[in-house]
């Protein structure tokens, strides 16, 4: 596990979070997880993961606000982020794009193997 990449997943839907966590652990990633943006930003700045998967709709602080805070941090401004969204979140995705994201995924179209492939590509350049 010495060279394994670290990924932070912030998602408040328990079943989706579990699915993602299990998949990335099975792919030998070190996985950090949170169901809230507040804890997510704390985990990000403390652990400096190689990649972040961020749900756009969260209770209290939403994904956009967390992304804004992350991009204001000297380390957080460059970390690759994939946004997890719903079909109806187009305006929020557009806003996230302005802040700089690697990609976005509509949760109903999520293909786990494709996501893992994408994360592996960008964390192993």
């Amino acid at each position, binding site marked *: 596990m010495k060279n394994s990449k670290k990924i932070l997943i912030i998602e408040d839907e328990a079943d989706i979070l579990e699915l993602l966590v299990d998949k990335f652990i099975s792919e030998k990633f070190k996985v950090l997880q949170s169901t809230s943006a507040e804890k997510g930003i704390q985990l990000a700045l403390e652990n400096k993961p190689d990649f972040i998967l961020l749900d756009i709709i969260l209770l209290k602080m939403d994904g956009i606000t967390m992304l804004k805070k992350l991009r204001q941090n000297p*380390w957080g401004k*460059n*970390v*690759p982020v994939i946004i997890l969204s719903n079909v109806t979140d*187009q305006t929020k*995705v*557009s806003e996230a*794009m*302005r802040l*700089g*994201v*690697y*990609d*976005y*995924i509509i949760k109903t179209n999520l293909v786990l193997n494709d996501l893992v492939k994408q994360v592996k*590509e*960008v964390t*192993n*350049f």
Partner: protein
Amino acid sequence: MINSSAFEAFLRQFKPILYRRKERIILPGEDTDSIFYVAQGHVKQSILSPSGNQFTPYIFAPSTFFPQIWLEKGKLSDIADHEYESLTPVEVYKIPKEQLLEYLKENPNEVFILHEQLTVYSAELLKKLETRVFSDAYHLVILALLDLARLFGKKEEKIILIEYWFTHHDIASISGLSREVVTKQMNKLGEKKLIGYKNHFITVNNPELLKAELET
């Protein structure tokens, strides 16, 4: 770059369309009566040869229009093997040709901006063709990196930081080479200290020296 308030008001009647990275926006052989305006992100034009080789003539940046052939009288089906794919996540507006023509008739000054885009496109295309025909993999990778530095670069002291998370796979798709060949050329450039990595991003350590490598 068209960024007048009149154009903003014109755009508001259309709904923006989002694409994830690596999504095809116009398929090879597909015809369209619309022109796309890039609001956010970057779109890659590719030409696919019958033998499966790929060539990227141009990358469309925010505030540009594609496909360029629309500006002439041509049809996309005349150039059947062109495709347009999102290089990053993108937000585009799909504008019916007739409506854009009407807008341009009412705002003739903006035609010059479209012509300027076409001129830049043609110059880039010629440069790419020259490199493609007369150069090797090393030079194709340099050209792709210079392109990315121009489009995504941010100057930081003496280096240029390419501010998007490009992988060797991406550079392979832009330069029409295999990932393995790109990695070999990138390593060569790294050993010469012409490029590097900083905080997840590729850096061009000295753009002038990298440009000079095109002449070697």
